[in-house]
């Protein structure tokens, strides 16, 4: 009891110190960029420490802390501009306040700080403000929705403190406010534009893509914990999420812009997270809820860290277009990228694999437990997620191939990437710590608590043991290696029918099959690209005229399929979903 109180006090001080350090970082940036980044890194580590002590939101805190730690370390090594360090640490501070907020007002303050600094940062870099405007504009759209939601909450409870609610309306409002920020359907330029436009440096890109969207997830999760359950919202979120997964992955597959394809994959991941949130909201069964929560948390971890790593990879590459970029590969970069993309492709034994596994498991179990027509929602979502994973694997393979695999060997760089890469299997190992308290099936040959069984309807629906896979795979490989004896290796030129030509294949070419096969979806013409900017799209983008021009140029150069169609699918999906649920 007493120790508990001490802990409270310690926590309080820790919180203050963390915030102060970040503010110091902000101040220092006026004097030296590097110093500011270093301090920001320190503050991030403190925040991680703080997160470890805090209860149900532990995961959000620790993960955000790690993202900041990595990106600010990267900046400390590579970025020199003071302006940049100012806006960067400002953004971090904003997110930090949002996460630590005890009431709606603090939350909004943090939210605005984050938005404004990020906007400034995007503008400052390359001195081009239009994308910044877009970003800000949509940032404000979300803010408006949030304020609306919060006001409703205030009217009900009469206090700004986070307090349980009886009405679901605030949840609806805020949820959509947050999804705007997460860059889910039509508002995806919030997430996608500044990054894809190359107006954000690697470190900020990773913060925008990993940490800021995470703040959105945190917001929804928080509001859900306050509001009563609404299955309707659950269904909506699941389907919207699934659509985002499928189309985000598809467009990431065909995009030929390095950061662009990462940004699309972020949309895919946010979609998956949204699906997890949705299934958390949809199901009534407590066991299932627990498992849904588990998959949500694992997905948050997997996406945020892997995406951070991949954006940092972009920092070691010259050029933005996958087909024309130039770079050299190093052991660290190659292995690091491979591990990161493995996680992004949702493969065991990485944390991404656990995430995909648990999400699908959740969805399919729900389709039984919910039953009836409503049971079809998670089912279809599951299949869409499956297809999305297929596309993601392809996109990630292409990313790795043309950022490292086929590149000539160069100096030893990118140890940071390797570090984050190694985290992927390690986190998979730890994932059963997050697992709801139904682990520990002392089944045949299992180590106790190494199993993550999706305990459902008495008997176990299924289960995996990351620990197990991680132990057995290397052992079996070693046995294979030893059993197959030593090998004589000779280095030769690749066999290209004896022509002596080297690799001429472009990244664009590697993705072209899909462009041809799904012509009717992507609206691509052979090779070149259809750039039909249609009415509806103009309507949305009155406030971002520049974006249309850019989207044309961009789609011609990088997207090679008109972005407007992507928008339309998302919006249609949205409308359809709304209809499905309310009729």
């Amino acid at each position, binding site marked *: 009891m007493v120790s508990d109180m001490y802990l409270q006090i310690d926590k309080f001080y820790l919180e203050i110190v963390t915030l102060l350090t970040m503010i110091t970082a902000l101040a220092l940036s006026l004097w030296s960029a590097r110093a500011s980044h270093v301090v920001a890194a320190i503050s991030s580590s403190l925040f991680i420490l703080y997160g470890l002590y805090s209860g149900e939101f532990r995961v959000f805190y620790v993960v955000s802390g790690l993202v900041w730690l990595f990106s600010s370390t990267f900046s400390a090594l590579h970025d020199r501009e003071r302006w940049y360090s100012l806006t960067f640490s400002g953004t971090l501070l904003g997110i930090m306040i949002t996460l630590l907020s005890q009431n709606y007002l603090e939350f909004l303050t943090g939210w605005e700080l984050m938005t404004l600094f990020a906007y400034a940062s995007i503008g400052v870099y390359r001195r081009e403000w239009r994308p910044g405007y877009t970003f800000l504009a949509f940032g404000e759209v979300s803010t408006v929705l949030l304020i609306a939601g919060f006001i409703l909450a205030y009217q009900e409870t009469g206090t700004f403190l986070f307090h349980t609610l009886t009405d679901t309306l605030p949840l609806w409002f805020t949820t959509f406010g947050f999804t705007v920020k997460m860059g889910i359907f039509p508002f995806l330029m919030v997430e996608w534009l500044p990054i894809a436009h190359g107006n954000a440096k690697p470190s900020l890109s990773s913060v925008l893509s990993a940490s800021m969207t995470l703040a959105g997830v945190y917001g929804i999760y928080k509001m859900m914990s306050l509001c009563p359950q609404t299955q309707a919202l659950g269904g909506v979120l699941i389907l919207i999420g699934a659509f985002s997964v499928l189309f985000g992955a598809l467009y990431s597959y065909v995009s030929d812009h390095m950061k662009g394809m990462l940004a699309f994959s972020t949309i895919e991941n946010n979609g998956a997270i949204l699906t997890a949130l949705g299934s958390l909201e949809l199901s009534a069964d407590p066991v299932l809820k627990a498992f849904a929560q588990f998959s949500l948390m694992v997905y948050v971890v997997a996406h945020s860290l892997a995406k951070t790593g991949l954006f940092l990879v972009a920092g070691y590459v010259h050029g933005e277009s996958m087909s024309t970029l130039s770079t050299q590969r190093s052991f660290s970069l190659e292995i690091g990228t491979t591990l990161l993309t493995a996680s992004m492709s949702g493969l065991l034994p990485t944390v991404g694999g656990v995430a995909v596994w648990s999400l699908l498991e959740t969805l399919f179990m729900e389709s039984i437990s919910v039953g009836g027509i409503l049971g079809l929602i998670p089912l279809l979502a599951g299949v869409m997620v499956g297809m999305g994973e297929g596309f993601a694997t392809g996109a990630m393979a292409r990313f790795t191939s043309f950022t490292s695999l086929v590149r000539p060997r160069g100096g030893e760089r990118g140890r940071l990437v390797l570090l984050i890469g190694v985290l992927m299997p390690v986190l998979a190992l730890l994932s059963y710590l997050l697992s709801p308290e139904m682990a520990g099936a002392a089944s045949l040959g299992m180590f106790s608590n190494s199993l993550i069984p999706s305990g459902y309807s008495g008997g176990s629906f299924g289960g995996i043991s990351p620990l197990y896979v991680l132990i057995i795979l290397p052992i079996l490989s070693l046995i294979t290696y030893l059993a197959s004896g030593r090998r*004589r290796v*000779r280095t*030769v*030129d690749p*066999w290209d029918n*004896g*022509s*002596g030509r080297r690799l001429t294949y472009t990244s664009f070419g590697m993705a072209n099959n899909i462009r041809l096969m799904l012509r009717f979806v992507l609206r691509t013409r052979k090779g070149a690209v259809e750039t039909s900017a249609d009415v509806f799209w103009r309507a949305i983008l009155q406030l971002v005229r520049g974006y249309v021009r850019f989207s044309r140029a961009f789609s011609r150069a990088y997207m090679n399929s008109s972005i407007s169609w992507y928008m339309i699918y998302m919006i249609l999906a949205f409308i359809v979903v709304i209809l499905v649920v309310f009729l």
Partner: protein
Amino acid sequence: MNWFLRGIRRGILTEKEFPQVQWPSELHRSKEGEVKCPTDALKEDRWDPNRCIFCRACEPILSPTGRSVQAQVKRSEPSFRRSFYLYPIDVGTCGGCNLEFRLIASPQHDMTRFGIFLTNTPRHADALVVMGVMTPKMEEVLRRAYDAMPEPKLVILLGVCAVSGGILGMPPDIRGDVVIPGCPPTPESILRALVEAKSGE
């Protein structure tokens, strides 16, 4: 009719004995007389199969026996006894060797019963089958193909062009472990040579 049923109905067409071929086959001197051989395959009355293009200019002083032309196996590789993958390369043929070589896959000959297969990459190949006279641009390609093959490996010279250049040019400069004369060599003689090359019988 469904081709599966057709296949079943036809049964197995693989043969043990192959019909005699007059040209090319081992020649023997049946008459006395002077012969003007365009490729000097006849030196002091010795008939040299490695130079002969079987043009029938020496008929009837030399006449065919119908025995298929003997290949020379200088080196064989026992580890290919049951699994022998070939990569054919054409450095300047008339198309005849290419065709006859493909015909060892025909149901009548069926190379696969001896564990002989064709492959489309030198990486998987155990033997390089060289056909035709040397042409300038193919020299580099031939060298690359040979390089691209893993040890142990064999080189098979197929057809008089690859062996001695025949009447049309010079042979490729690569040492052949197996030499199969004939213009073009018959599938039978190719098959015999390959079987000998992989097992040493």
